[in-house]
């Protein structure tokens, strides 16, 4: 076999390894049996139907959506400020400060979760609630937002803003007329990605959520009841589908932003 043949085989094996477990989800979500085992025993929508009747799960979903929306807003706002500063201004220790801001990207989440739990409960005496989760999720999402928004702001020629001011606009109207339209695709992309990260996140939510679990924490709890597992599979199927759709939309906006500014693609997450 030629070398490229072996490489092709390796690539296929790699993809199977990555995605086969996820394909199991929809397979058993539509399988007409409470036992997770092959062979499959027929098609059903029962598990999805059952999802609609679990009130505790609906509460968890609402909780998760609230946390994800707030996290997306806060981390994108912080990201805009940081990306703007990083691409426009020079200040002492800039590289060190940016490095520290980006660090949560590689910190183990369990460490973040435990230390935040200690800070919230022992130092500030805060009761655990959706807000403690939001604070922690904002911490881990902000680096992603900065990475996306950095690209958006870097591709913005500083002369464009100067030209608008030169043509009579104030700094405020320049931001509205020039800066915002050119970076809005990056902002949308940042909102969607931080929303998705927060929605899926388990470890931090598990530690910091009070008696109102988020959806991933609720799902984890369901595993104690084997009869519920097909329902979890159905829920998982929906979550995977929503994540893929949101990330695809985010990437679409990132690329559209580049095309709009007439820039070359210099990377991104997808």
């Amino acid at each position: 076999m030629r070398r490229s043949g072996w490489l092709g085989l390796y690539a296929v094996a790699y993809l199977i390894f990555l995605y086969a477990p996820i394909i199991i989800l929809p397979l058993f979500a539509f399988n007409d049996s409470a036992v997770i085992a092959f062979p499959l025993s027929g098609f059903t929508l029962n598990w999805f139907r059952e999802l609609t009747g679990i009130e505790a799960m609906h509460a968890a979903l609402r909780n998760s959506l609230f946390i994800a929306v707030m996290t997306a807003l806060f981390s994108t706002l912080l990201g805009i400020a940081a990306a703007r500063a990083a691409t426009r201004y020079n200040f002492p220790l800039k590289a060190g400060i940016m490095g520290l801001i980006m660090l949560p990207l590689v910190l183990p989440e369990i460490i973040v979760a435990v230390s935040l739990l200690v800070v919230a409960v022992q130092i500030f005496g805060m009761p655990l609630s959706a807000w403690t989760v939001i604070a922690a999720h904002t911490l881990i999402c902000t680096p992603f937002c900065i990475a996306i928004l950095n690209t958006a702001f870097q591709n913005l020629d500083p002369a464009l803003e100067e030209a608008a001011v030169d043509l009579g606009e104030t700094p405020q109207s320049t931001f509205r007329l020039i800066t915002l339209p050119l970076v809005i695709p990056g902002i949308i992309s940042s909102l969607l990605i931080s929303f998705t990260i927060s929605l899926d996140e388990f470890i931090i939510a598990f530690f910091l959520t009070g008696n109102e679990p988020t959806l991933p924490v609720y799902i984890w709890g369901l595993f104690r009841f084997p009869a519920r597992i097909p329902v979890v599979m159905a829920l998982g199927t929906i979550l995977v589908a929503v994540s893929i759709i949101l990330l695809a939309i985010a990437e679409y906006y990132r690329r559209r932003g580049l095309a709009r500014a007439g820039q070359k693609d210099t990377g991104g997450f997808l």
Partner: protein
Amino acid sequence: MTDRNAIIDLRDVHKHYGEFHALKGISMEIAEGEFFSLLGPSGCGKTTLLRSIAGFEDISSGALMLDGADMAGVPPNKRPTNMVFQSYAIFPHLTVGENVAFGLRRKTGLSKSDKARMVDEALEMVGLVGYGARAAHALSGGQRQRVALARALILKPRVLLLDEPLSALDKKLREQMQSELRRLQRQVGITFILVTHDQEEALIMSDRIAVMFEGRIAQLASPQDLYLRPKSRDVAEFIGVMNFFEGGFQTGAAGIEMTAQGLGAARITGDQIMGSGSGTSCAVGIRPESLSILFEGETTSERIAEGVVDDLAYYGDMTYYEVRLDGMDHPLTISMKNRAGRPVLERGVRTRVAWDPRSLVVFS
């Protein structure tokens, strides 16, 4: 200086960036309707000066008067200047027409049809009739340049500032835009201030040129004066090519006598001497086109020196010779038109070189 009014008056302008002293006391006046160039190598402060006039940089000390008003603390959007940026800064999310009309947003008392007419006129002026609805990011470099010009000129500024506007264009387009910019400037009568590092471009386009080195104006003069009477050796070397000899001069009863290694002695006039130093150990300069090869059988009323052809470059219309005169250690550059009947000399042959004392410049 012409007798027209000064539209810009700079008085001892300094600019510091921390430790870096970018402008070291610039004083000059720029006249209304003038095509003025700021010429110098990169880092000489020419762009800083232009951006200070536009209001994007605050000057550290001194005064900057625009149309009689002190510009201290006046932001760019309140100054009667408009700028054509090096990158053109065309708004990529707007159409050509929206780009050109951008500055009219703040003009009250103009109806929609007035504005549309003004945009059409501005596009016509730069040769882009019918381009109004095009997407701006789909334009070529030359077209972007024209849009940037139309966008700035539609506001009828007192001064148009151009920051290296032609540097991104290829040679042919650049030459075409040079003459077009000149024509446009005469047509609208607005003061143009051009920043460039290209001495040829500055000579072709400008009424007057300020040559800048290291934050100072080395010389402010018309293109001809700058070329023929450069005030310093630095200016002479930056504007075109100049050959240098070691030499000196003495002032006697019969006038000024100059001597130069390789050329010998000659009588010159006082206006050929630049600087106020002594007559010992000066640099004597002459331009390549003021020297000529004397081919076999040709005679001249000019002075003659002899030397050997070191090297040559044949350009088609011209031949550039490197000739080492007897008694000199470095060759001179001589440019010759390739007229009918003139041979192209070979390396190593001896030749006569004709020169005229009137074309010498002495830097003391």
